[in-house]
């Protein structure tokens, strides 16, 4: 119990934040975190030192995706991780006459949060883990159970998707 508290409890905000963003709902996030924490508690012997936050977030993230599969299966669209570079080249930088930085100044807090919420879960989570939780590529790779190269390309695509969605947003277009 004391060991579990030392390992898992300090990261409860990070766990809840991830679950809240993935479920997009306070109540469901609570349920998912509680379930994940009980699972972590049960399998605490499987934790062999190392990054405690990454360990607990791996479990929370799995619970989130189990929850999504049950409750929001239509959100779980597959994404390919290998065509990122192609898309770098294909994306025009000047879709709108405004310079990007000028456009960005008009992006308010609630719209930004809506845009992040609208990302597919695999993109949404990586934005949350990197930009809000400020985890390293290595930690994110551990949590997502993918190679670091995949973290990099997926993060790039998530950012690109987010930025495109702002350029297409009515507020951005009307100016």
């Amino acid at each position, binding site marked *: *119990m004391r060991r*579990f508290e030392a390992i898992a*409890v300090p990261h*409860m*905000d990070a*766990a*809840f*934040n991830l679950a*809240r*963003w993935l479920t997009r709902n*306070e109540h469901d*996030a*609570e*349920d998912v*975190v*509680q*379930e994940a*924490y*009980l*699972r972590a*508690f*049960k399998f605490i012997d499987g934790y062999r030192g190392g990054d405690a936050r990454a360990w607990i977030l791996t479990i929370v993230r799995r619970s989130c995706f189990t929850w999504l599969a049950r409750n929001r299966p239509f959100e779980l669209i597959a994404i390919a991780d290998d065509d990122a*570079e192609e898309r*770098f*080249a294909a994306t025009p*930088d000047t879709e709108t006459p405004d310079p*990007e*930085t000028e456009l*960005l100044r008009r*992006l*308010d*807090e609630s719209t*930004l*949060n809506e845009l*992040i919420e609208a990302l597919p879960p695999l993109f949404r989570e990586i*934005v*949350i883990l*990197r*930009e*809000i939780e400020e985890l*390293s*590529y290595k930690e994110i790779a551990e949590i997502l159970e993918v190679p670091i190269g995949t973290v*990099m390309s997926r*993060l*790039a695509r998530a*950012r690109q998707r*987010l*930025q495109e969605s702002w350029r297409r947003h009515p507020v951005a277009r009307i100016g």
Partner: protein
Amino acid sequence: MQCSEARRLIGARIDGELDAAGEAALAAHLADCAECARHLVEQQEWHAAIKRNAARYTAPDALRQRLAAAVADAERPPSTPSRSRAGEWRQWAIAASVLLAVVLSSSLTAYVTRPNADDRLVQELVSDHVRSLMADHLTDVASSDQHTVKPWFHGRLDLAPPVDDLAAEGFPLVGGRLDYVEQRPVAALVYRHAEHPINVFVLPNRGGPAAASQSLSQRGFNLLHWTRGDLAFWAVSDLNLAELRDFQRLFDRNMAAAG
């Protein structure tokens, strides 16, 4: 360096993940490529904007408290009644969902004390039990009144399960539910003892004459199986075996008395 490679390095630079060699290579490209230089500035601004404006949700205190209580409960041996949150089944349901995952993923490797028991049936009964707790679907008809619960099954099932409230003996009736065992609808009677729900599955008896009750335990649940007349019963609970046996004796005695 290609612009596509430079864009990749720009991402790593923003994230503080670029090593010295990458830094130098990127600087060389940016000196020659205004497009990529502009892209770097944009990405830095986006990075800052997200950090400034994206919500970071914090765990509600209620969640922390519930979790502490649930962990405390999970630590207690299943036979000890919970003292912390009497009447609160929700945390139980969540603990059960953890068990369900284990039960469902362990297929037939589960520990069963009676090697001749029908493993698959036991698996199914335990899963049904856990699912009933998990999905907030313990009962279709929630009543402690046997005269409400018993008629509810009429027309829904071929068999008529015996329903007796055993509250006076410490096992109040909670209600009844239709469940499925081996693809057949069966009656599930729900009782509880302190914090512990008990599911009694009532099936047609295909096993012949009355047999002494059998017990087995699986994944923290105890199961008791017995038959009377043309009915077969399975009680499933996290209750300890001695108390579950007490329950079974009461249940069976009442049924025998009713003829």
